[in-house]
């Protein structure tokens, strides 16, 4: 991977505040252009965005909530893994039970963060996996 290629971070959560929060968390990297940030309040609009934009394999990460009306995070995970296998998917959920975690991993999730999310841990995980520097 080229060091200067920006990382595409896509966040899906039915709570708008989560988007604001992530954007604040990654604001410096976003300002510097190291991170391209996209936030969606539901799975459908996220899928529409993915279908209508160009993929950059190896530098795309999707963070999604599980418990959302209409299309759940599991469904989104399933569809993304089918249609866009190059995108890594991390779950972010208040559920911390084995069943939810195992189900996510079985559907192909690359990581699972329980809420309240430890953003430092999330950031270091992303830094490690993608070689970007998040300040």
């Amino acid at each position, binding site marked *: 991977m080229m060091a200067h290629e920006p990382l595409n971070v896509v966040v899906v959560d039915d*709570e708008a*505040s*989560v988007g*604001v*929060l992530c954007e*604040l*968390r990654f*604001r410096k990297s976003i300002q510097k252009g190291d991170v391209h940030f996209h936030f969606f309040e539901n799975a459908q609009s996220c899928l529409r965005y993915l279908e209508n934009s160009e993929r950059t394999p190896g530098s795309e990460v999707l963070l999604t909530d*599980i*418990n*959302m*009306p*209409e*299309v*759940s*995070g*599991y*469904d989104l995970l399933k569809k993304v893994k089918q249609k866009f296998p190059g995108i890594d998917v991390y779950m972010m959920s*208040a*559920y911390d039970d084995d069943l939810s975690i195992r189900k996510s991993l079985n559907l192909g999730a690359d990581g699972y963060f*329980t*809420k*309240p*999310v430890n*953003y430092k841990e999330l950031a270091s995980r992303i830094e490690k996996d993608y070689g970007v520097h998040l300040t």
Partner: protein
Amino acid sequence: MEVSTMQSLELIKDIYNVDQLLSGKSYIQELVHRLAKALNVKYVMVGHAIEPEQKSIQTDFLWAGDGFVPNVVYELADTPCTHVICGTRVNCYNSQVQLAFPKDRMLQDMNIESYIGAPFLHTDGGLIGLLVIMDEHPFKNPAMLSSVVEFFAARIGTEYRRLAAEDSLLRIKESLEQLVQERTAELQQAFASLQQTQKQLISQEKLATIGRITFGIAHELKNPLNIIINASEILQTEDLDPDSFKKAADMIQQHSLRANDIITNMLKQARQESSQQPEWINLSAMLDRSLDMYLRSLTDTELRSRLRKNIAISPGIKACLLDAPGIERVFINIVDNSLYALAAKMHQGENSYTPEINVTLNQESGFCRITVRDNGIGIALKHLPNVCDEFYTTKPAGEGTGLGLWIAKQNVEKNRGSFSITSEEDVFTEVIIELPNPTELEVQA
């Protein structure tokens, strides 16, 4: 008929003319008295053999000379009585009885000359006791005496048997009474313990729904906490631009309030006590709030995302309730049942199925109506008449107490409302709750 027979019959008739109202011991006593007088003899004795050896006699009635004297016990050995109890008939010594029983000191002490005795028996032939007549002179008419003694021994035997029967009846009655008392005490104890168990079960059932909701709510709380914790961390970073600072601070404010709302609602739900005074409450707001809280607490993500909610709660409807928290629990319980039925049907795996819940609250004249309808698994016709019965459940053991709908119905009725369920198996279930809410003007009037 012979003269002696005639005489005996006359004599028997005369003696037998006892006050027929007498019975038992007083009857026998009277007979003994009359025998002594009519036969003009010194001694008349009625006694029973002492069990189990039957080697001695306890007298029960002892007439001597002019009246009754204290009873005695005597050994049978070497007495003329031995011969009486060995046979089944009369034994008679007209005179000189002492010569026949030289070892019998009592005969000597009492200066007895003549003796006649007859036994009386159990129905199975066993000995009960004997009737003995003795005198200081020889008997004048032994044949007649034999008939009389034999007759009255039989009559006294009947009385003894009757007394024994009465006695045994009394003992049976007493032991039965004791048994009844013991059983009653056991039953009362069992009943008390059942009542206690029932109380516990009812309270468990109330808490069961709340417990499930609390589990969901606890997760629900993590969402605002997620934002509060992370936003406050952002606030602590240096060189934060004013715009970001405001965003983070606003989020903390907003989500702290939200967390507080969640907890407040949860506590309202968990409140178990109820006021005994009717109070006006905003039913629309209460149903809105508890439905929102309940749906948020849903942990079945598939159901949560597929569920179609048709909510039509007319705003501003008030009701005068005795037990508002009770009614709120009923409502949540009914919604909980619906979601259970919807999840059960959804997990049967039919792809085209859309789980749907309809909740309405409407004002009618003088009362308001809550309906909760779902298109879940429904209730089989055979269960429908019983669903509100105590302890009636179709859920597997350990999953339901069978008290939910029973409590619901009781609660609604306590609030002078009505509760009804209609259902078609595999198609729908609809619960209708009607609560009286006359206008406040009508109440004041």
